[in-house]
């Protein structure tokens, strides 16, 4: 709707999904969690099961927009809109979620890594509709953290970071995933940071070095709120705090 208000979008037809049933379900099973396209931020926030089944998602959603926006904004809308500073696309990418789309050629599952192409541009075809987002099951002992900085509570983030990993019996990180948003033209995974630290213990010096390695290759966004240097420093700080918190937070 803001796109219409600004005359940035002038669609010939606009389809309201309000009366399409079945898209507002949150399904939690052994395979993971499926969020219907019409699930609202409010629904995620109020579903106490998700705090256990997908704690990183639950934490991220708390940072999205204001009360009145959270009453309306949806999973499908956020994924399709693909704002580079939005939380859900970042979670989808970091958690390797799949986006389920249907169109005249049937249903397909698009990995998040292939879904977000550029600011407000996705792999969705014009005649396709998102019906759900699928997240794989979350091991109970998994460590995680979500950090962002915005100028005002509920505003879009200047930068944000999501981190999760499992610890093996030797205290080494496994399945490390590191995501960032608000910093580039789409959400990104810091694959070099992940590669440098996977199988390692989360020692502060190694973590700091790996963060630098991961952010050095990023082409940082620059705008009136934050220039590229500031964003880089901010992201590094948020990532450092995220690793710290992930280590300190005892698994539920």
């Amino acid at each position: 709707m803001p796109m219409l208000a600004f005359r940035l979008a002038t669609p010939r037809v606009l389809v309201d999904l309000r009366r399409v049933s079945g898209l507002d379900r949150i399904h939690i099973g052994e395979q993971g969690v499926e969020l219907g396209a019409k699930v609202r931020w409010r629904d995620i926030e109020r579903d106490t099961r998700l705090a256990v089944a997908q704690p990183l998602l639950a934490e991220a959603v708390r940072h999205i927009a204001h009360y009145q926006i959270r009453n309306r904004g949806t999973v499908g809308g956020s994924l399709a809109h693909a704002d580079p500073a939005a939380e859900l696309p970042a979670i989808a990418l970091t958690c390797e979620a799949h986006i389920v789309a249907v169109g005249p050629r049937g249903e397909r599952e698009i990995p998040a890594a292939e879904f977000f192409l550029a600011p407000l541009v996705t792999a969705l075809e014009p005649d396709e509709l998102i019906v759900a987002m699928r997240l794989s099951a979350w091991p109970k002992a998994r460590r995680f953290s979500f950090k962002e900085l915005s100028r005002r509570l509920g505003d879009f983030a200047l930068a944000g970071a999501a981190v999760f990993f499992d610890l093996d019996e030797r205290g080494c990180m496994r399945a490390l995933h590191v995501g960032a948003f608000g910093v580039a033209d789409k959400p990104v995974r810091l694959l070099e940071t992940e590669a440098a630290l996977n199988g390692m213990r989360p020692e502060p010096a190694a973590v700091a070095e790996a963060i630098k390695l991961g952010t050095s290759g990023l082409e940082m966004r620059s705008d009136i709120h934050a220039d590229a240097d500031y964003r880089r420093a901010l992201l590094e700080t948020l990532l450092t705090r995220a690793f710290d918190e992930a280590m300190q937070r005892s698994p539920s």
Partner: protein
Amino acid sequence: MTSITPIINGVAVTVEVPDRVTLADTLRDKLRLTGTHVACEHGVCGACTVIVDGLAVRSCLMLAVQADGAAITTVEGLSKNGKLSALQDAFRRHHALQCGFCTSGILTTMHALLLEEPDAGEHRIREVLSGNLCRCTGYIPIVEAVLEARAAYAQAESGA
């Protein structure tokens, strides 16, 4: 043009609206319910907040056609028989408004919040209030007024 019949402040009203027009503009220009204010028109300021089927939402981000059949409460619907509601009365006593531009959006937001969460603490109230910009009163008297009005909502809930 599409014919819609929302229930506005308890009364079913049928209006013809162009598909492209927002709920905010329909309330103000068509139905003359000018208590709903419009400023930013892209969801940031909160001045246009109304309650749709129990939820506080931005009426500038909703098309009027999407409100067909919905129960809508605007700021005009808060007082009963010319008497201010407990929340409005608390705003008056705490001087929680000056120019009043933001006030209708804050009243509708806080009304919806307290109906659902009459025990909302100061932190929660401030968090929710972050979706409404007030550029002249300052938020402290607003928070005080809302905190005080909670008792009336808790009472209404236990009495119901």
